[in-house]
């Protein structure tokens, strides 16, 4: 019971009764919350927290700050624009800290981190760490800076290297987002574009592939949905199994089938060859073509099911009325029937587009190099290059993109209109 209804009946109720009823309402509210709470806590712990920590990791990066804390405090006094290297005291602090790292066998970690900011610096840091390990601490405290500058023909005299250490040392960083957007900071600290566009190209390609797949599923799914929606209920129910069985079949199974079909010696090639349509097998697998084909097949039911359920609800008499009023079949179909199917088309498009833009398995198996999408590069940075922060930044951008698409859709159409089956 809402507050308004409570007020309207308050004249006929005693104060005691109102109090009672309010308490009752409170108790029912608490009961509803108690039912939902376990799952909310479960989802927060098992799902939201992991994604939250990943987002946090994309801009919070304390590794270098933990490895050489003293040096970084000293570097705060240093003006990176001066063109000179930091003062003697900073250099000595650094040699001492690097010696400690070498002893603890964590100098490699520092080298890897600095190398990301300044490629090529890894070997110098590792070499210096090895040398410093053997030197006496007392000696280094006096003239460690001179020793440091002797290594590798004075490479430590480069201010860019110190700039790289200072940059990597900041705990909060936009560095990974810049990389994910093909940007970087030049030595003066301003943001410039990178020469080669890797990630923006990949985002663009993923959007394009997702768009192709969405358009294909509309194009292929529309006639079938219309046919099913206008067929006799019994026929439609039987034919629906042919849509639902692929929907329920593991996507790994369907990807396997496409590999069997499209391989060089696969079913399609051998059929075409035995029919003498082609003489040499076509190379269809491991390309953008095979990715789009297999994903269209996998996602087609996501278009057909909402489209079918919308078309089922359209009264056929509108179209008949348009015809009997003198409309030609095709214009009447386009202007009367099609607009009524828009909720179905848009719901199906949202599902297909959002699912396909983050797809990983099928591009990884049938995509080759040409059919790779943004998810594949995220997996690559997670598993092979171990650049987890960049993977997190790329993932956050992908998530942001999907939330924007979802939000626009919710504004235009309303998410609650989506139905499956």
């Amino acid at each position, binding site marked *: 019971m809402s507050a308004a209804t409570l007020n309207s009946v308050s004249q006929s109720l005693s104060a005691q009764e109102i109090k009672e009823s309010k308490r009752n309402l409170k108790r*029912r*509210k608490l*009961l*509803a*919350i108690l*039912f*939902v709470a*376990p*799952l*909310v806590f*479960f*989802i927060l712990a*098992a*799902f*939201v*927290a*992991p994604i*939250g*920590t*990943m987002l946090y*990791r994309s801009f919070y990066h304390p590794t270098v700050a933990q490895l050489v804390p003293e040096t970084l405090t000293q570097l705060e006094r240093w003006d990176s624009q001066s063109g000179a290297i930091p003062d003697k005291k900073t250099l000595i602090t650094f040699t001492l800290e690097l010696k400690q790292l070498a002893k603890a066998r964590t100098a490699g970690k520092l080298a890897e981190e600095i190398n990301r900011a300044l490629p090529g610096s890894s070997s110098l840091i590792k070499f210096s760490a090895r040398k410093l390990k053997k030197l006496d601490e007392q000696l280094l405290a006096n003239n460690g800076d001179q020793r440091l500058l002797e290594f590798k023909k004075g490479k430590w005299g480069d201010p860019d290297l110190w700039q790289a250490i200072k940059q990597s040392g900041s705990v909060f960083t936009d560095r990974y987002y810049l990389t994910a957007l093909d940007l970087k900071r030049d030595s003066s600290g301003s943001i410039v574009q990178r020469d080669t566009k890797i990630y923006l190209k990949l985002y663009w390609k993923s959007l394009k592939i997702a768009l192709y797949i969405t358009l294909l599923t509309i194009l292929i799914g529309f*006639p*079938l949905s*219309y046919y*099913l929606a206008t067929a006799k209920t019994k026929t439609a129910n039987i034919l629906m199994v*042919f*849509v639902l*069985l*692929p929907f*329920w*079949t*593991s*996507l*790994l*199974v*369907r990807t*396997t*089938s*496409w590999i*069997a*079909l499209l*391989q060089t*010696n*696969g*079913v399609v090639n051998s059929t075409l060859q035995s029919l003498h349509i082609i003489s040499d097998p076509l190379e269809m697998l491991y390309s953008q073509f095979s990715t789009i084909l297999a994903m269209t*097949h996998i996602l087609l039911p996501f278009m057909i099911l909402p489209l079918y359920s919308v078309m089922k609800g359209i009264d056929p008499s509108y179209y008949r009325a348009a015809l009997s009023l003198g409309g030609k079949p095709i214009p009447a179909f386009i202007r009367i029937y099609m607009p009524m199917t828009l909720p179905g088309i848009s719901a199906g498009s949202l599902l297909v587009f959002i699912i396909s*833009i983050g797809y*990983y*398995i099928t591009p*990884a*198996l049938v995509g080759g190099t040409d059919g790779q999408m943004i*998810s594949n590069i995220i*997996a690559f940075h*997670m598993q092979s290059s171990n650049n987890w922060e960049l*993977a*997190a930044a790329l*993932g956050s951008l992908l*998530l942001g993109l*999907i939330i924007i698409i*979802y939000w626009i859709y919710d504004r235009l159409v309303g998410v609650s209109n989506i139905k499956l089956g």
Partner: protein
Amino acid sequence: MFPSYFTFWQKLGMYALRITAWSTLAFLMIPILVIVPLSFNVEPYFTFTEGMLNFDPAAYSLKWYQEIWNDDKWVLAIKNSFYIGFWATIIATVLGTFAAIGLTKSEMPLQSAFMALLISPMIVPLIITAAGMFFFYSQLNLAGSYIGVIIAHAALGTPFVIITVNAALSGFDYSLVQASMGLGAKPVYTFFKVIMPLIRPGVISGALFAFITSFDEVVVVLFLAGPEQRTIPRQMFSGLREQINPTILAVAVLLVVVSAIMLLTIEFIRARSEKIRTGV
């Protein structure tokens, strides 16, 4: 066949529609059907041999199916898939059913916000979920453990339970609960004897959805599971990447059979609950 007033062009249009519709159905089904005969191929190829096309019995064999049972990795994968799927389904169904009941109560505050939160595992791309879980679960020492994979799969399955139970509750008459309580039944008794029987079809459909979600899921397993927790799809993934072998086709056919059983069960439940609801 067509009404007599149909013009030539209308008939042609109907034929064109029929042909497009049936070819789309063929496009949907052929990739799934084609692997069935291929899995009986005696040769280790992914294609039809001369002998198979001539229906030579010697060209067909069951050896790839035997291979599954002889390979410890596949046997472990099958066990794991059912074990993980079972526990993930239990967790998802119990938590999801309770949450759906709470969410549909009119007294529930912030209904749509909670709904969005609880549905979100379905919307976030799996690669992001998997990456996030990998970071987080490793810190808790849950990566490479059964518990980790089960929790992850349960989280992925709950949205389906909420959606199906929500749909089942949309026609639920809460005065039945008041009647039961008014007649002196305890809340727990009311839940199991009044609410449960009426929403059971929704709960079972949700559970099947949750199970198939776990059973088919591979991205999270790829990141989170160790060699001990390899599931069927995970084993297929590495099989397709490393060495393609018709055993995969045999497994694929078995999975199609599992999906067909699931589908028929769901459709059966749906048809029955429709009958109960409409009273036909």
